[in-house]
Every structure is written in C-alpha cells, then in structure tokens.
C-alpha cells in the first residue's frame, strides 16, 4: 500500500499543520479572484468528492468504482428539491446527502462481502444500475436532457453571479471536509487504518470489520452527496454525466493523483484535474485534424505519468521529502535503503590505492 502520509503529517510539528490549514483556507477564500468563479466552485465540489473517496480508498483500503451513484443521485435530488419546493439551496444539498447515504446502505451491505477488485466490481455494477434508472426515469431526471433550471435560493439573496455563489457554497464544502478530517482523526479512523493494514487481525481484536466498512462507506457516500448536490446547484443543472461511470473513474484518478490516504492530496488532485480539463475544453490541442485533447486522454496520460514518477502521489511525495529532510525515519521501506550497502563498500576499496 501507499505511504501512510496522514500519520507522517500528524508527526509534523503543530505549527506545520496550522500553516497548512491556514494556507489552504486562504487559497479557498481567494480562489474566485484567481480563477474563473464557476471553476473555483467545481474545484471545491470535486475536492470534497475526492476526499470522500479517500476515506474508503486511502484510509480503509477499499476501491469504490461506483461513487458516481452517490454524486449523481445527490445531484438529481438537490435539483428536484430546489425546483419542486423552492427550499434554500443548502437544505436541498443536505437532503441530497441524506438520499445518497440511504442509497449507500444496501450497496455497502452487499459490497463489503467482497474485497479488492471484486469490491470495485460490485460498486461499479450498482452504479451502472443507478445510471440505468436515471436514464429511464425521465419524469424525474429529464433523461438525456438532464434536470434544468435548478434555482440557487437563499433567503431572497441574488446568487446568480457565480462569484457570490462560491462564497455561499464554500461553507458547505468546508463542513464536509471538516467531517472527513474528524473521521480520520478519531478512534474510528484508527480502526479504519487497522482494517486497511490487516482485516483479519482487526477481527481477532474484536472489531466487526464489515460493520466498520459499511459505516465508512455510508459516511463517504454522504460527503459525496454533499459534493454532488453542491455541484448541481452551482451549475443549475444535473445531467446523466453525473451518474456515468467516467465520473467514478475521474474521482479515483484525482485521489490517486494527489496521493491516497492524505486528504490534502485528494484536494490537490481535484484542483489539478478540474483545471486541466477546463483548459483542454476551452483550448483544445490539435495535431492535424485530430483533437488529441478528447475527453480523458490527457487526464489519463497525466495520471499514468504521475503514478509512474511519484508512487505516493503528489502530496504523498512532498510530505515524504519533507520528512526525509528532517531525518525522520520512514515507516515503510523505500528505495534509499538499497543505496546504503554500496556506500559501505567504498572504504574497503580505498586502502588499496
């Protein structure tokens, strides 16, 4: 498995962590000044989604390949609530998160019986079922046309300007991130890491592993729902894209790209992917008549590159280097260990000359 970077981070002096949190908060607040505000909102929503996935992938060792089901069903739910009831959008988003959690319960109960690639397959299969239902149930989802005209209600405030909506939506995402952080740094979070490292041993210590997996799956789905609901309200639109399997794949890529098991990494991965895709969508790169920036290609290439170059992901690698600088031994074996014997051989040669 990948570096247990969150623990490395925890081992950093408190000051470091405070700096990181304040820095992150500052960036979040400044974001719509720096980049196009709707993209800023996209980054925040996807960052929360990626963090939610990381609770499973990085902290519990479960690869869900069906999280589009929660993001997408939440998008439709938030849209429907906002359109039908005219409720303030945070209420719609919260309702969406609840629906995602309810949907997650049966899926989790069946999926946790499997591990590894079979777990991924079960989640994917369920997500495809959700996609199928969304495609058929036109009355609710609008089918291929999507659910249009989702209002951004908030006590009569005019949030039609994406710049202002960003600041209305940001607190929701921050609360979601705070929940994820709390879960990771709780007794429950400790058990999750134990399950990731050795499920059988966790059971022999009295932990009902499947129940823990179901719990974290539902929490993860809830946070994904929060993100998906926010995304749909931000766009005023929920489409089939939201429940399509590529959305599940995209969030996995974001998390792995940033470095699993780090929370920060997921956010960085989300920011990078959203920006790159936005750039490619607005200014495609053509080789002759072929647009090589078709959906997913460049993202895929970046992904492959990062995984090959930085086994721990972007953030994981940074944290690892920081730690090496400070001469803190790593928890896991790494390549530098193999260079030591070579260095030790040198003195043996020296006396000859």
């Amino acid at each position, binding site marked *: 498995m990948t570096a247990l970077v969150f623990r490395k981070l925890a081992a950093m002096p408190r000051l470091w962590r405070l700096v990181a949190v304040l820095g992150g908060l500052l960036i979040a607040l400044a974001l719509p000044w720096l980049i196009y505000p709707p993209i800023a909102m996209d980054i925040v929503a996807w960052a929360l989604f990626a963090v939610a996935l990381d609770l499973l992938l990085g902290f519990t060792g479960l690869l869900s390949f069906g999280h589009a089901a929660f993001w997408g069903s939440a998008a439709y739910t938030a849209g429907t609530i906002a359109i039908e009831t005219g409720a303030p959008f945070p209420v719609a988003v919260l309702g969406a998160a609840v629906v995602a959690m309810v949907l997650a319960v049966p899926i989790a109960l069946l999926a946790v019986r499997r591990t590894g690639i079979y777990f991924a397959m079960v989640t994917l299969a369920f997500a495809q079922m959700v996609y199928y239902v969304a495609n058929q149930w036109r009355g609710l989802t609008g089918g291929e046309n999507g659910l249009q005209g989702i209002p951004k209600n908030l006590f009569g405030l005019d949030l039609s300007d994406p710049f202002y909506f960003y600041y209305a939506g940001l607190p929701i995402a921050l609360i979601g991130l705070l929940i994820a952080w709390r879960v990771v740094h*709780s007794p429950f979070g400790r058990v999750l890491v134990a399950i990731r490292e050795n499920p059988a041993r966790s059971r022999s210590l009295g932990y009902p592993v499947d129940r823990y997996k179901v719990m974290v799956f539902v929490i993860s789905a809830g946070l994904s729902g929060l993100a998906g609901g926010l995304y749909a309200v931000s766009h005023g639109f929920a489409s089939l894209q939201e429940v399509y399997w590529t959305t599940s794949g995209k969030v996995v890529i974001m998390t792995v790209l940033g470095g699993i098991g780090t929370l920060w990494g997921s956010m960085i991965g989300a920011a990078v992917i959203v920006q790159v895709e936005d750039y490619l969508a607005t200014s495609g790169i053509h080789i002759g008549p072929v647009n090589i920036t078709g959906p997913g290609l460049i993202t895929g290439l970046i992904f492959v590159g990062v995984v090959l170059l930085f086994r721990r992901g972007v953030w994981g690698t940074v944290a690892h280097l920081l730690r090496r600088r400070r001469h803190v031994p790593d928890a896991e074996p790494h390549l530098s260990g193999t260079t030591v014997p070579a260095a030790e051989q040198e003195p043996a040669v020296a006396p000859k000359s």
Partner: protein
Amino acid sequence: MDPSDGAVIKTAGLSKSFRGFTAVDRVDLTVADGDVHALVGPNGAGKTTLFNLLTGFLKPSAGQIMLGGRDITGSSPERIARLGVARSFQITNLFEQLTLQQHVELALMGTTKLGHRFWVSDRVLTKFRARAGELLDEVGLVRQREVPAGTLAYGQKRALELALALALDPAVLLLDEPTAGMGMEDVERTVELVRRIRTDRTVVLVEHNMSVVAGLADRVTVLQFGQILTEGTYDEVRSDPRVIEAYLGGESAA
C-alpha cells in the same frame, strides 16, 4: 453442557475438511478452567487449524464448540474475541505500518465501545498510554514503542503478538507457537510471562519446544493427522510409545 464441570472450552466431534482432506478429525477436546493446556503434534497435525476453528476464522465442517457453556459454533472471530478469547498467530500477523504503541492501543480499545466514535478526537486514546506502556514492558518492547511494527526482528514480532493478546485481558488465551524464532533469553522471558498471566486465565498453547511444554503445561493433548492421539500430563504423554512413534514418524515423513 453443565458449566459447573469446570470446562472452559469443550469441543465435540469437531472436524474440518479442505476439499476432501481432513485437517481436523472428530476432535473432542476439553480444556479445564485455569489450566495451561498444551497442544502438541508433528507439523501438519492440525493444531493451527484447530485454533482457527476455536476463534471463528474457519467454520467447522462438523461438530460443536462450547465456550463456558455457550455454543459458539459458527460465531464470527470478532464475537469470539469479545467473549474473552484472544489468540496470537503462528504466522506473525501485525499492522506493519503502525507503531507498537498504536498496536497496543488498538487492542486495548478493542474491549471498549470507543471504536465506533467517529465524532471524537483520537486524543481520547491517550488514556490507554500508560497501560500500553506496561504491556510493552512486560514483553520487553517498551523501548521500541514508537517504531513501526514492520521494522521489528522476528522474535520481537512474536513478543508483540503476545502483548496484543494480553491487551484484550482475555479469559482464554490461545497462543500458537509463541516462542518460535526467539532466542533462549526471550523464550525464558515468555515462559515467565505465561506463568505470571495464567493466574486468572486459561491458556491453550501450541508449542514445539518440549522444555517450554514441560515447564508450563498442566495437560498435554497430542494431535496427529487431525485426531487426538492421546492426552494426559506431560510425563504421561512423554512416555507413551504412540507419541514417540508419531514424532519419529512425523519427522521421517517430513
């Protein structure tokens, strides 16, 4: 079963087959309350498989397991652990990336309801710190408490296994070759430790080192080909010609 007959563990006709191969064959084992009960037998006799049945990691093909008058046949490992049965594993089975401190904290937390609390800070675990230190001290690992388990030497991992099992404060302790891979000194420390902790619990011990068995066991059960060959005190068993034969036969076959 009548709980007053003093048996903590009682199996009846306990069997386990793997695709036609019977690893544990109609075992009727009775472990008396407060005993140190050794399970010996040649390699492949079914000792570890029997442990896996007793702790719920394997489901029996046939037979029944009673724990203090309660039928636990088919119960899950976590449930059996919570009923007070802890085990150490023959093949070291740890959380490689976690520190020893975190290991023992995890085990101590295993007997509480704290694990489900995802809304409180993990700083509550500091209340286990002192006890974790004591346990690590008992097995001679207190100086390595901040080290990831993956970096320990083999014998030290065995000792950590023991600390984890002890942290659960079990009524029944199942130890699968606790001294395997240990040096003389550590073997002695482990024997001493078992002697100290046995006062208020029952210990079932799989052990190849016969001097350890001689020094600790009240009862010895000899397994061969998944069946109970004989049972008695160490001296009774040692002089049994079938046992000598089994060990010699086992060696030559291996």
